[in-house]
């Protein structure tokens, strides 16, 4: 190993140690260092599946289960069940845990029908809620599709064609793709088949937009992590990095 390499690596190790000792004194830096170690631990999976990444995976699943319990009690069960039942003495709240615990009978073979009974209650409530949502959610989608196909005072022919005509054609051809009970044979059937094919082509453009956006989303997750490693973590003890204006 040539001498320059020695000096370079010794310098790097010294910098990291200086940062680590500073971190031990300030809890805020604990968070930074733990975050950096966790991130680098997960990134070892890029090389290949290894014990470090699997260890961090199990830590994450444990923290997630723990926080779910804390959040369910602290923000829900205490204020919305325990206080009304005990402090406001509304006795009927005792039925909530009783019905709630029926779910756990899914694990016993003889009593599992009781779990399906309370699931039936929730599926029924979910179906009823969807019946209530249907028009408030979808009727605006229907009447927003009533676009005029001829120009008027504000809108010229070019805009009408490029917007309203195209809208109606794309909407109807995409809808035609999802008709399954009508055969694609016979004169009318073949036209339906051609409309469905055109609908599938228009959907490819929509999937192209989703593809482009998904690439943008995934990449910004990584850029966000790299910015944390460079600006927040290394930047906390390497001033040159902190002022890069990231």
């Amino acid at each position, binding site marked *: 190993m040539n001498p320059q390499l020695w000096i370079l690596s010794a310098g790097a190790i010294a910098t990291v140690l200086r940062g680590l000792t500073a971190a031990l004194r300030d809890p805020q830096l604990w968070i930074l260092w733990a975050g950096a170690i966790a991130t680098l631990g997960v990134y070892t999976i890029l090389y290949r599946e290894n014990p470090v990444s699997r260890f961090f995976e199990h830590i994450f699943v444990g923290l997630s289960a723990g926080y779910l319990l804390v959040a*369910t009690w602290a923000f829900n069960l205490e204020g919305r069940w325990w206080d009304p039942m005990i402090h406001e003495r509304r006795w009927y709240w005792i039925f909530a845990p009783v019905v709630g615990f029926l779910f756990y009978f899914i694990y016993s073979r003889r009593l599992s029908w009781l779990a399906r009974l309370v699931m039936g209650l929730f599926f029924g409530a979910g179906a009823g809620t969807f019946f209530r*949502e249907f*028009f*408030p*959610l979808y009727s*605006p989608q229907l009447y*927003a599709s009533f676009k005029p196909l001829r120009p008027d005072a504000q809108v010229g022919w070019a805009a009408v064609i490029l917007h309203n005509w195209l809208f109606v054609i794309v909407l109807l051809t995409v809808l035609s793709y999802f008709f399954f009970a009508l055969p694609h044979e016979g004169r009318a059937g073949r036209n339906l088949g051609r409309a469905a094919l055109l609908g599938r082509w228009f959907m490819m453009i929509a999937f192209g937009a*989703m593809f482009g956006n998904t690439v943008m*989303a995934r990449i910004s997750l990584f850029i966000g992590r790299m910015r944390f490693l460079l600006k927040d973590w290394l930047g906390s003890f390497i001033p040159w990095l902190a002022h890069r204006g990231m």
Partner: protein
Amino acid sequence: MTQAPPHGFWQRMQQIPRYYIYALLAGVVIWQLLFPIRLPIAPSRATLGVRDAIRNVPEDKIVIISVDWDASTQPETGPQTQAIIEACFQLKKRFAIMNLAAPMGVKLANDIALRVARRYNAKYGVDWCNWGYKVGQGNFLMAVAKNIPKAVATDFYNKPVSELPMMRGVENISSIGLVVEVTGLAGMTELWLGLIQGPYGTPFASAYTAVMAPGYYPYLDSGQMKGMLVGAKGAAEMETLVNRPGSAVAIMNVQSWAHLLIIVLIVIGNVAYFMGRRRPGEGRR
């Protein structure tokens, strides 16, 4: 790789190990983080819609920010939440943070709100508050529509919501001026539109991860949604609107070059594929 040993140039081009590509991506990102080439960011119509929706909230009503996101989308939804909170403080609109799913969201958003509130010396309980993660999804929303203090009960700090100064007079959905949904989860918007915005006409705006945004343009066209932030791009535009450029602007600068890299990779990959196919004997195609 079990393919036949590469012989032509294009075959070798197709067999480049993935670690080179990983290094290429990391290199482009680090280069642009350290030596950013800044380009202007022009807010789109959908982002202006969110800012205007916040501005048009009447004085006596509050804004609900539903933070249905967790750390898996933090680089996009974090700056979105921060920019929306900045806009609420700047435009002097009182807001309440809460969420229906992803319980982490309320804690992450609370940390952001505390940091930003210090800059505007806004007080918890007077200018903003945090209802916490509320179980029940549609059932919770139907209860909130009729009686907020009973449905929400206690806030993030375990205090009864009705005791917070800003919540005095906030009885039901008619005292809510705007709902802003920040999320990467499907189904949340349909709950708010179907059970709150549709029935009671409460204005609704959104901030989505870029993955989800294309699917919700129909709700922008129908006017059910006043505006929409699209991923880190929407957050960067909102940051420029409230002139607090932050992590989203930095991400978008790097994003430009990362997108170019991805497009170049796709083009070269396809050229290598099609050129490689012309050579006979490359295996039955």
